[in-house]
């Protein structure tokens, strides 16, 4: 890859359970305007838009990019919708990156929003991601899908429910420092244990909320940035990797991957690290925003990112090594566990890392962060996007 691609503008909502003051396109526009203001740019400067939108049924508008076109000002511009489930946001940033890296455009906007709180019950929508032939008849959803990953991770490495609770306590404490986070109230291990079981071993407090809000980012070519003397941070590594569909193939004999772990996320990080020249992430990375909607999944994500050996993340979490002030803070924003507006959650991971290496993360700033990593997971634990962002 020759010329670099920079991030020059970021906009995100203060995420909440509901935004009754704003329609879906209002939320998208809010993020876009914030990002354009951050970049000190006009809408006319944007050449292309990548629209970040996961399952339509979550916002309740079929192909909601149609109505979203107006909210991103895409009239007369290149426009493309991206959907890789929970990974949608980081896939959208990647698609925007490719527009610039390919030399097709100098300035590209990516944006989206979600109103998960309006759909009544996101698991009703998410049950429909399973195939109608063999699996739809079962009460599968993303909560029990990842509870089943927790069961295997516990069996393989000895993780306890207390280890899971420790992730919740860390992320809520970090979210309390982030004005854009949805769940900002600190909690304790006792409170996590007192919350009811949703899908054993996952309790209510081990789960992300259903959030409403938007996110937008402006990416530009190195030449555009240098010619105008703009402030930027750089996307130096981009990875993606997929896993096959059937959960049952990630267990049993001759498995292609273990559902305990995040095999394809590891492969995705390997691709991003190779591109960025990162050979030892524990020494070269100072901050990580890893997509983890349930407490247990933060552990296998940390391991897939190379920040811990397989099965070692719970012990390192116990030592405080992944909290703000520790070796490599993970999800200093509070992460997906405290804010999940699904269509843009993985974009927020990239945006947060960009703010960290820009030194503009505010109350949850990681001191001295120069190199950060972000990830997004989508589908039935299938589509994994990763990025390296550097100052």
């Amino acid at each position, binding site marked *: 890859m020759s010329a670099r691609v920079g991030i020059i503008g970021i906009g995100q909502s203060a995420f909440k359970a509901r935004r009754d003051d704003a329609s879906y396109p209002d939320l998208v526009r809010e993020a876009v305007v914030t990002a354009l203001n951050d970049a000190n740019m006009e809408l006319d400067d944007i050449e292309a838009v990548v629209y970040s939108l996961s399952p339509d049924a979550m916002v309740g508008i079929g192909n909601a990019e149609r109505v979203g076109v107006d909210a991103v000002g895409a009239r007369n511009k290149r426009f493309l919708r991206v959907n890789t489930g929970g990974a949608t946001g980081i896939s959208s940033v990647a698609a925007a990156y490719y527009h610039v890296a390919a030399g097709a455009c100098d300035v590209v906007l990516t944006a989206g929003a979600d109103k998960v709180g309006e759909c009544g019950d996101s698991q009703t929508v998410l049950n429909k991601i399973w195939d109608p*032939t063999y699996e739809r008849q079962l009460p599968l959803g993303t909560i029990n899908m990842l509870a089943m990953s927790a*069961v295997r991770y516990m069996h393989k490495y000895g993780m306890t429910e207390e280890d899971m609770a420790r992730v919740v306590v860390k992320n809520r404490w970090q979210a309390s420092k982030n004005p854009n986070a949805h769940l900002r109230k600190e909690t304790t291990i006792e409170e996590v244990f007192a919350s*009811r*079981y949703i899908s054993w071993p996952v309790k209510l407090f081990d789960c992300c909320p259903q959030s409403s809000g938007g996110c937008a980012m402006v990416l530009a070519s190195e030449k555009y940035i240098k010619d105008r003397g703009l402030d930027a941070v750089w996307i130096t590594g981009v990875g993606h990797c997929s896993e096959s569909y059937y959960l049952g*193939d990630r267990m*049993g004999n001759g498995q292609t991957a273990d559902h305990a772990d995040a095999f394809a996320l590891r492969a995705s990080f390997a691709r991003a690290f190779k591109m960025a020249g990162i050979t030892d992430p524990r020494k070269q990375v100072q901050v990580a925003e890893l997509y983890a909607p349930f407490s247990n999944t933060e552990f296998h994500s940390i391991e897939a990112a190379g920040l811990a050996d397989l099965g070692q993340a719970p012990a390192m979490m116990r030592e405080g090594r992944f909290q703000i002030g520790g070796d490599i803070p993970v999800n200093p924003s509070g992460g997906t566990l405290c804010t999940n507006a699904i269509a843009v959650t993985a974009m927020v991971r990239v945006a947060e890392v960009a703010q960290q290496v820009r030194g503009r993360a505010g109350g949850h700033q990681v001191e001295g962060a120069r190199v950060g990593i972000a990830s997004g997971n989508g589908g039935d634990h299938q589509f994994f996007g990763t990025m390296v962002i550097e100052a």
Partner: protein
Amino acid sequence: MELLKRKEAWNITYTHALGETASWFYVQLRDHAKIYGKRDAKTGRVLVPPRSFSDQSLQPTTDWVEVGPGGRIETFSIVYEEFQNLPPPPYAFGYVLLDGADTAIGGFFKGVDLTDPKAASEKLKIGTRINTKFAEKRVGDVLDFWFEPEAG
């Protein structure tokens, strides 16, 4: 100011064709209470549920192989929360590696008292041997069978 809302419901009916492979599988299940997998010629893996092609090579799968009715639990969850359009809780379900199969198939676990989550999760722990039970009246569907721990 007063902020208004509108209620909407999506209720769409689909009639999905299951295709030759799943149709054959479900006819054996319905008429003979037997579960079959299909072999991936490249890797030799017996895929259960059966698929018409290998995700490793995209080549058609070859011979049918009868599997089960015994097997072992590969993972599970016990759901205590009510979700719209899903069964009333509590219920347990997960994935089982049936004897002779190489991949695990999803199904409900029955015959376990789910009142105490800790005790129930011990009875369903990974590696537990199960038997497949078949409904008296079968319609050719995944819900025609379920799993019960051998130990009871």
